[in-house]
């Protein structure tokens, strides 16, 4: 479920983890499609991450503004790390 911090909603890498990748702990950010500051709709693809060479699209959990990208392109991250923050609105 989406973590909240203040008014912001986390884009949580754990939310999109494929069921068959339970034994994998790390991922890699391939591409960001939304820019910081952009208005995004709930469900809109924000970025693509790679988990064991499988591409996974990460949707926006809520409508709002993409306030901060925490894991930029080429970044490696752990399962459950926050990829970005959205200010709902």
């Amino acid at each position, binding site marked *: 479920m989406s973590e909240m911090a203040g008014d912001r909603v986390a884009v949580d890498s754990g939310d999109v983890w494929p069921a068959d990748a339970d034994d994998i702990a790390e991922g890699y950010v391939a591409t960001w*499609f*939304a820019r910081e*500051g952009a208005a995004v709709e709930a469900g809109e693809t924000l970025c693509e991450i790679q988990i064991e060479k499988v591409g996974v699209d990460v949707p926006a959990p809520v409508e709002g503004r993409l306030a901060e990208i925490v894991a930029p392109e080429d970044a490696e991250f752990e399962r459950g790390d926050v990829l970005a923050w959205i200010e709902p609105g």
Partner: protein
Amino acid sequence: MADAETGAGVEAGERDLTMSRAMVEAIETEMRSDEDVFVMGEDVADYGGIFDSTEGLLEEFGRERVMDVPISETSFVGAGVGAAQQGMRPIVELMFADFFGVCMDQIYNQMAKNTYMSGGGVSVPMVLMTAVGGTYSDAAQHSQTLYGTFAHLPGMKVVVPSTAYDAKGLMHNAVRDDDPVVYMFHKRLMGLGWMPAPEGPKTAVPEDEYTISFGSADVKREGSDATVVTLGLHVHRALDAAESLAEDGVDAEVIDLRTLVPLDEETILDSVAKTGRLVVVDEDYRSFGVTGEIIARAAESSLGDLEAVERVAVPDVPIPYARELERAVLPGAEDVEAAVRSAIDE
């Protein structure tokens, strides 16, 4: 609908796309608006295209309109030609341009010539979409660009996008064209997780549809000292070279051809009239190809404007598998930079 030849009239939003997603967006839009548009090729359905050129289409359109085919290029390219002649608008994917050899008769003698041979009795509104290029150690039979091979023979339009923005507009135009279009996309530009693209091909892409006319080259960087004419991946390498040259006060213009057939001679000649120096950069073989053709056209029309010409291309050898050898034969930004300096020193 806007014509985005110059980008005017279309507001780029805050959304960026990779080149593969921009191509798919154009294809799915065309498939929604015209039931005669369908996709056929090896691994285009369940796999979504091995370079993501058809990713997600099966889910929306089903197997009637997104068809995996057996490994028989002659039969499925030929089936595309037949469907097109019957009024459909097939998008047929040839997985690698290198494989054209096994279906050469269907491409060269049927797709490209049937309109002519029938005296205009049939047209062939087909898109032959195909992956080109190296940089990832796939060796001599899976790394060629073969631009010259396709642009050489009359009857086919030849499209080579270098950015997501261009890829979408050119794909819309390709599907709507009433004649066969060969749409050659460079694998390294697609934005695949396993084959990261350089900076540049991922661009803002409007969600609305727009077309980019064929035969309209794009000046990707303006400059006054030398004209660099190129296409595909090497647009980005030329831009890198231009940036490096600018640090030394050398101002290079970079022209992205976007289509080889038709060829926008006017943009090239206007630029050469300004700079006097023409450098052509190609990832295809040096001999009998794009570099020689562009320089010949400039010489025919504007010989007096030319102070120097240079060409940068793959020396006439098969593309090596070994990473360092492949890097050595494929033109890099440093090769473009050296050629521009050489043209200016001449």
